[in-house]
């Protein structure tokens, strides 16, 4: 679906309400404009939080991308129950990801100080919804290791929701069945790589 400023998912002009934003971010494919809205409305707050808590500008940029990714995945799994505004929820996600990052960087004292100092009574516990950053990175490396053709086919089929005949046009394969077989092999290959790391799989399954 293409997304324009006239989309019914936007209430007025080019601004989203929380409701219309959530609707848009649940779409497949996700409209770029919805992600851009997250940047326009929430980046500065996130960056300020990171900078105030021992982070650099680069940390702010990296963490915000993780926050968006986590937020959209939570929405796609219908795990955002609307118990808070998007802004409050994003704050909690940011805090969770950043505190875990500080822990990884072995800054426990800082982490504890920040945890107490910036604790918000309205804060939500989102830890059970968010995959650890390092775990995510390992997962992404596994996808990367599949090779270009496998990535292309799997992304086209699962992420872009393209039909086999559309995918065939972008590849040098004889027919759809060959592409289909390749897709099975690629997904199986990824599944086997993941299965070889039972600790990772176990942690990921808790997030499903």
């Amino acid at each position: 679906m293409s997304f324009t400023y006239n989309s019914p998912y936007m209430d007025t002009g080019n601004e989203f309400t929380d409701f219309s934003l959530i609707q848009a971010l649940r779409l497949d494919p996700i409209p770029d404009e919805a992600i851009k809205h997250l940047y326009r409305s929430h980046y500065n707050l996130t960056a300020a939080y990171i900078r105030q808590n021992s982070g650099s500008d680069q940390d702010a940029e990296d963490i915000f991308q993780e926050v968006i990714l986590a937020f959209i995945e939570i929405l796609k799994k219908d795990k955002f129950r609307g118990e808070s505004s998007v802004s409050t929820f994003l704050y909690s996600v940011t805090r969770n990801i950043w505190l875990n990052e500080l822990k990884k960087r072995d800054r426990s004292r800082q982490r504890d100080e920040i945890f107490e100092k910036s604790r918000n009574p309205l804060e939500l516990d989102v830890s059970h919804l968010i995959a650890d950053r390092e775990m995510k990175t390992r997962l992404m490396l596994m996808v990367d290791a599949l090779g270009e053709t496998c990535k292309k086919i799997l992304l086209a089929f699962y992420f872009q929701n393209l039909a086999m005949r559309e995918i065939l046009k972008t590849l040098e394969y004889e027919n759809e069945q060959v592409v289909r077989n390749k897709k099975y092999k690629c997904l199986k290959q990824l599944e086997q790589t993941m299965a070889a790391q039972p600790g990772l799989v176990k942690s990921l399954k808790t997030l499903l």
Partner: protein
Amino acid sequence: MNEPTSNTELLIQYLDGELEGEELQSIKNNIEANPDLLDELENLRLAREAVNSYGLREKIRAIHPEMMRDLKEKTKPGGSVTKMIFQYGLRVAAVLIILFGISAMYQYFTGTPEKLFSAKFQSFELRELRGEPVNPIEDVYKAGKMGDVISAFNKINKPSQEDYFLAGNAFLNSRQPKNAIDALIKLQETNKSLNQHLFEEDTEYYLALAYLDNGQAAQALPILEKIHADPNHPYNRQVGSWFLLKLKRLIPH
């Protein structure tokens, strides 16, 4: 954990929602009965999640640089205002360039020798003559009475170079280019015969204009090219490249 390939394929088809009827029921039954199959199915689901997660991360990464540029621009003091003014200025400049282009094209394609003459012709001002006025025709010329200049010129038996020059200009003022050409050529011939250079450069320029007014672009061109090529010529700045270009277009090849 590893099932035959056919089972994996069925699991993926099941995951992708491609099974129906008996096949669908059969795989459901197998999954229920076989924990290894269920395990594999969950792993395949995780693999699919990983692919989606990878795609989403790439999408965010692709948008990120553009948004960072936008946000940094907005936080610059006066950044957005400066940008707005700059963009507005660019638009105005673009419109002016287009209008200028249209005007230039119009001039280029609709020009005639007479139009070129009108664009350049300005009466010669007598104060530029040096020395005391000793020629009665000068007073009449200064008074702007071009008809009287011509009458007086016609009565002179042996015109001087100055007579020819003033008469030539009077003819040009009266839009009698053919007579102006005759008078100015006579001046050049007299100069040549007397080995003098009176009014030489002024005559060149006004003769070229006379040719233009008479529709003789080809005769005007070499004179004007000479003036254009000589930076010390007093009329050099009057003859620009664009003017010559328009003139050349009028000359049939």
